[in-house]
């Protein structure tokens, strides 16, 4: 047997390694996506005042700190009886939409666009955002940076900081939105609205306008017959901050729908000896291995999954973009994982529409943004949609409010099994007997999991780091060939 090792992976949060096991005839026999890092955050927080956890949790990772802050805040709300000022929910949701915009811009333009603007087999030296800007022009590059900065600024005006928030408190938030701050936000939202439309148009022109890319998305090996998970509101419309978790199978039938506090009845985690990261699955179906099919217990929790579980979008322009997307990809649900990049842009339209809605809300600058908790009830579960998937925080505390346990199921962890499976599928499709893979093929393997925008810095609770790429191929225990990138 020959082993190909892609270690570490580029343009991915955290440090990952892919090992591809080749049979003697050169075909792919198996594939492991490994995260060689350690956990420990849940233990770190035990013994601390539970109201401090939203502030500590943002330090898990600099990539989606607001997601952890929000999920943590909601779990802490629960520990203190669950009453939250209605205005605080609005402000938190408003902040979160701005956070989504910032994150989706970064992923789409810096991580996904190089594969489509420059091509999957472009020279790795130029397959990055500098290459993208060189091709599409400096003006667009300037718009990307400016839009990203505006999304950050909106967060700062709302929560005091654009990262590592200390804003949410049990029962609400520590500051409201002043009218003068709102007036600063409004023109930025108008610009972001134009930018979201522009990004969708860019996707249509560059990706949908290229029949090869459309074929790759719809007919390539980047599909999986597993189910979808995401938060929805009472109308089954997509929601990122609040609601119930809905799971829909890949034929569109609802499997289950649960309240955050019921999560342990519906989701369980499987352990494999070769991975530090667990493999969540639908508990009532039981662990059935890394298998596709209508009876599978595996699911994706991604932007595309969120749209798959939603009957509709809560805002009109996003609804139009949602309909266009599913019409183009052949219906809903969609199993083509590369459509995640499109789904992010549909979500971005929704994000700006929600910001517009909040800007027009006469109550948004009110001063009733916190209810002071009067009791400690001892347990809370907070679920939000992190950009990378459904994020669950579950805490318990004693009668003095000291944390006694914490459990986190983070976005990327939900997708661990599907990432393993699609990586193997793509490797099997592209690595053929008798032909060693080149950089283009390796990048196309990376594209499989890049669609998930995985972030292992919190999945394993370890440090992120973009690293060079090294591929080692072994045959019968000896180094057969190697490829290096950025070393």
């Amino acid at each position: 047997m020959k082993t190909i090792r892609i270690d570490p992976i580029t343009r991915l949060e955290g440090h990952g390694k892919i090992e591809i096991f080749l049979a003697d005839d050169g075909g792919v026999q198996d594939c492991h996506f490994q995260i060689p890092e350690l956990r420990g955050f849940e233990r770190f927080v035990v013994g601390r005042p539970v109201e401090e956890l939203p502030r500590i949790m943002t330090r898990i990772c600099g990539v989606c700190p607001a997601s952890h802050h929000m999920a943590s805040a909601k779990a802490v709300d629960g520990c203190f009886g669950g009453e939250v000022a209605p205005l605080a929910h609005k402000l938190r949701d408003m902040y979160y939409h701005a956070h989504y915009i910032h994150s989706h811009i970064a992923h789409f333009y810096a991580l996904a666009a190089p594969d489509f603007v420059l091509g999957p087999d472009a020279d790795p030296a130029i397959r990055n955002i500098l290459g993208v800007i060189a091709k599409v022009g400096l003006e667009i590059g300037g718009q990307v940076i400016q839009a990203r900065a505006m999304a950050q600024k909106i967060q700062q005006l709302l929560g005091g900081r654009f990262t590592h928030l200390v804003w949410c408190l049990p029962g609400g938030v520590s500051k409201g939105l002043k009218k003068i701050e709102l007036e600063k936000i409004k023109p930025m939202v108008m610009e972001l609205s134009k930018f979201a439309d522009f990004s969708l148009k860019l996707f249509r022109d560059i990706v949908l306008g290229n029949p090869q890319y459309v074929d790759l998305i719809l007919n390539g090996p980047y599909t999986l017959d597993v189910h979808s998970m995401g938060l929805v509101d009472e109308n089954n419309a997509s929601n990122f901050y609040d609601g119930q978790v809905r799971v829909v199978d890949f034929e569109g039938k609802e499997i289950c729908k649960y309240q955050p506090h019921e999560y342990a009845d519906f989701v369980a985690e499987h352990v494999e000896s070769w991975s530090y990261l667990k493999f969540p699955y639908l508990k009532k179906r039981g662990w059935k291995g890394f298998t596709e099919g209508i009876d599978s217990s595996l699911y994706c929790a991604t932007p595309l999954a969120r749209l798959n579980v939603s009957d509709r979008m809560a805002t009109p322009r996003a609804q139009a973009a949602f309909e266009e997307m599913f019409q183009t990809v052949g219906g809903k649900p969609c199993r083509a994982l590369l459509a995640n990049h499109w789904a992010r842009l549909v979500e971005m339209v929704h994000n700006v529409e929600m910001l517009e809605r909040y800007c027009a809300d006469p109550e948004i600058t009110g001063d009733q943004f916190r209810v002071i908790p009067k009791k400690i009830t001892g347990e809370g579960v907070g679920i939000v949609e992190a950009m990378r998937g459904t994020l669950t925080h579950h805490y318990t505390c004693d009668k003095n409010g000291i944390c006694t346990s914490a459990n986190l199921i983070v976005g990327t962890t939900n997708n661990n099994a599907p990432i393993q499976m699609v990586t193997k599928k793509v490797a099997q499709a592209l690595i053929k007997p008798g032909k060693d893979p080149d950089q283009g093929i390796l990048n196309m393997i990376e594209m499989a999991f890049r669609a998930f925008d995985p972030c292992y810095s919190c999945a394993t609770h370890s440090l992120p780091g973009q690293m060079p790429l090294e591929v080692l191929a072994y045959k019968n225990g000896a180094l057969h060939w190697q490829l290096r990138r950025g070393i």
Partner: protein
Amino acid sequence: MKRILLLGMGNPILCDDAIGIRLAGYFKDRLQQFADLDIIDDCSLGGFNLLDILKGYSRLIVIDSIRSGGAEPGLWHYFTADRLRETMNLNCVHDANFATALELGRRLGMHLPADRDIHIFAVEILDNRTFSERMSDSLENRFQPLAEEIFTHVSRLLKTHHQ
């Protein structure tokens, strides 16, 4: 606007990854004499986010951690961005690494420090995978002399700038 920025990079609760933050915090009061200096002693940002912070400055001093493999914890390196090696925190994996972000900013016409004016102090560390408010013993024990050594060099850099 002041012209020089000093950043302490890292994660304050990730064991040795806090070294940049600890050092910058230690220097903060002692560097008050330099009127042209801004200090952000707890900077846990990377990539494009750093551009927002650096915009407008002519000179940058970064204090960060590094794991070059097998080196003694507390050993430190000094280099400028024209010889940039990736430290643990100057990487940002969600968008672009520091060098790429800088290059992008320059192409877009932002006023950013030139590579030769970006001074990086990178301290070798042992453990950046364990959540802890305390650094490893080897680094804690070495902190005081290490801080004085780097402070001497940082002060010299700042005085040079003012001449």
